[in-house]
């Protein structure tokens, strides 16, 4: 048997390479079919044009990109970034104590508490956003309660405002911030907190000097996981928004489903993707260098 051994281990190495390839093949196929090909067709489509008969025809032009870069589009882009940024901020603000509580005080109930965080996903997002309408409208629950308690005397205009859009987005994406924060805080070594206390640090100091820096990966992940989908959302501003609160996602959706201007919609989507990619990479680099400095 012994003379056979080198050959057999060699063929085993080759075989394992094939097995490896076979194992990643479904994933590669998936990425190719559902990411690369559609993206490539969007790129091609963005160079087309729509004629007067509403036919999309090849034009090999950069005209659609020129239209995207029109300064008129800047306000809606900035508005979308502002809403998405606020959404991230509020998700982190609300998600942090929630994640802290579950991670540090959840005890044996942790799985149940985590399930509760994810429970809203069992109901359609649209149904949940519609229910915010009934809460926020002029004769809705919130206004009714505030009027009844005598806090206000005139119903507040809550619905169809920037407030209601950011509120809806924050509500919708909260779990995306909570879960990464939970993971980060769960991993936190409790002895570090005791050490900080023993060395005379007050709770606030412990938080800012020990807990927060260590949870930074969770903060970054949670921030990105909420910012990216909020930036592209169109359902929330459409339902909860008013006349001047539509976001870039609505503009893109309008091109595809109403104006029948697929080429312009494609160019818009690609520019948005590019902008997001660049800003996220820049942000991660910034965070990375900040972390290494700390």
């Amino acid at each position, binding site marked *: 048997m012994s003379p056979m051994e080198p050959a057999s281990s060699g063929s085993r190495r080759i075989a394992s390479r094939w097995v490896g390839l076979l194992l990643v093949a479904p994933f590669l196929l998936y990425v190719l079919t559902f990411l690369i090909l*559609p993206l490539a067709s969007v790129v091609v489509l963005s160079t087309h044009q*729509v004629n007067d008969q509403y036919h999309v025809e090849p034009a090999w032009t950069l005209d659609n990109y020129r239209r995207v870069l029109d300064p008129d589009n800047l*306000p809606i882009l900035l508005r979308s970034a502002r809403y998405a940024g606020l959404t991230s901020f509020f998700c982190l603000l609300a998600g942090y104590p929630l994640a802290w509580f579950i991670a540090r005080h959840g005890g044996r109930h942790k799985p149940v508490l985590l399930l509760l965080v994810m429970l809203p996903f069992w109901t359609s997002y649209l149904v949940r956003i519609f229910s915010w309408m009934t809460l926020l409208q002029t004769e809705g629950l919130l206004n009714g309660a505030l009027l009844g308690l005598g806090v206000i005397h005139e119903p507040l205009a809550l619905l169809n405002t920037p407030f209601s859009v950011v509120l809806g987005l924050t509500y919708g994406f909260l779990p995306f911030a909570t879960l990464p924060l939970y993971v980060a805080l769960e991993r936190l070594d409790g002895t570090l907190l005791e050490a900080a206390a023993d060395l005379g640090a007050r709770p606030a100091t412990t938080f800012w000097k020990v807990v927060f820096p260590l949870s930074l990966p969770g903060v970054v992940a949670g921030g990105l996981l909420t910012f990216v989908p909020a930036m592209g959302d169109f359902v929330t501003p459409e339902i909860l928004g008013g006349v001047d609160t539509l976001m870039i996602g609505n503009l893109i959706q309008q091109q595809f489903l*109403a*104006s029948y201007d697929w080429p312009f919609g494609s160019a818009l989507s690609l520019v948005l993707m590019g902008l997001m990619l660049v800003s996220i990479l820049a942000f991660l680099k910034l965070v990375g260098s900040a972390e290494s400095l700390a």
Partner: protein
Amino acid sequence: MSEPVLRVLAAHPPGPGRREFLGRSLTALAWLGLCGCSDPSRRSLNIFNYSNYIAPDTVSRFRAQTGIAVVYDEFSSQDVLFAKLKLGAGYDLVVASDYMLRRLLRQQLLAPLDDFAHRDGMMERFRHPPWDPDLRFSVPYLWGTTGIGYNRRRVQGVPDSWNALWDPACRGHITMLDEKRDTLGASLIRLGHSGNSVSRAELEAASRALEEQKPLVKQYTNDYIDGLARNEIWLALAWSGDVARARASNPDVDYVLPREGSFVFVDSWCVPREAPHPREAIAFLNYLMQPEPLAQVTNATGFPSTLAGARRRVRADLLENPLGYPPQDMLDRTVFQADLGPGERLWDQVWDQLKFRSGPDAPQGPS
């Protein structure tokens, strides 16, 4: 259901696309299998209609009578219908408004309806529409007008002018339609222009007027029935039948056709040229376009039907009110929405600009 819901839920995968390129790029979508997959041995029918535009039991009664299974989908804007039809979304029967019908016919997207049986009962007004004089490709279904739905308790007097929609006293309680033809059209008529204008200067003036109105406006939406009924919306650019529905649950709601003039519309059933089940589509039309089922539709939707014989079975309050069957002098002030031809692009641009690129965030000053 609301438009976003439909846009998400009604995302049918395209069939063989008109343009191979689009078809191929969307194969991925088709794989998701959002379609009502059809068993070839069972007869089925895919209907695409406006939301709230049929009686609740029309489809089930048809199914009980014929055994044909129906996949029923809704849209809330004609633009969505057009985008879907251009993709070849596999619908057998769709409802198109007059101007959209012209466009669909011009692009030869429709199939002739030779086996449809009930043309003779149509009201004279709709027997020979200019876009389809012999009703070869379309079956006029429901009709109505665009006007102002309002709340009598919250609005002073009768808002019988388009200016009422610019009334600062109703700030935050005004809605306009999320349909460029009606909203820009009403603004055009208010300024004394044709509601079908394709003049850039006139359209931009209409858009500027809407821009000035924006601080008063709650939303551009086609979902206003509930808001009117709950006193949330006081003034709405609205379609007559929708207001009738709101009025059914809130008697304070009323409707007026502005004196400057407005739009009348008729929506027609038609069969896309590439419909997979054209025979079932005709069977549905032959069932629906009879007095009894149509009267039920009118009673449920508030929109009068085109069939003269259906009128006798319609609810009395609809018959007496101008909402249901407006008197002739009111109708004389209305026009059909014309096919804009190449001018449609201009409307799209002005509409996009108004909806998305202006407002408090936009750079101020002369542009």
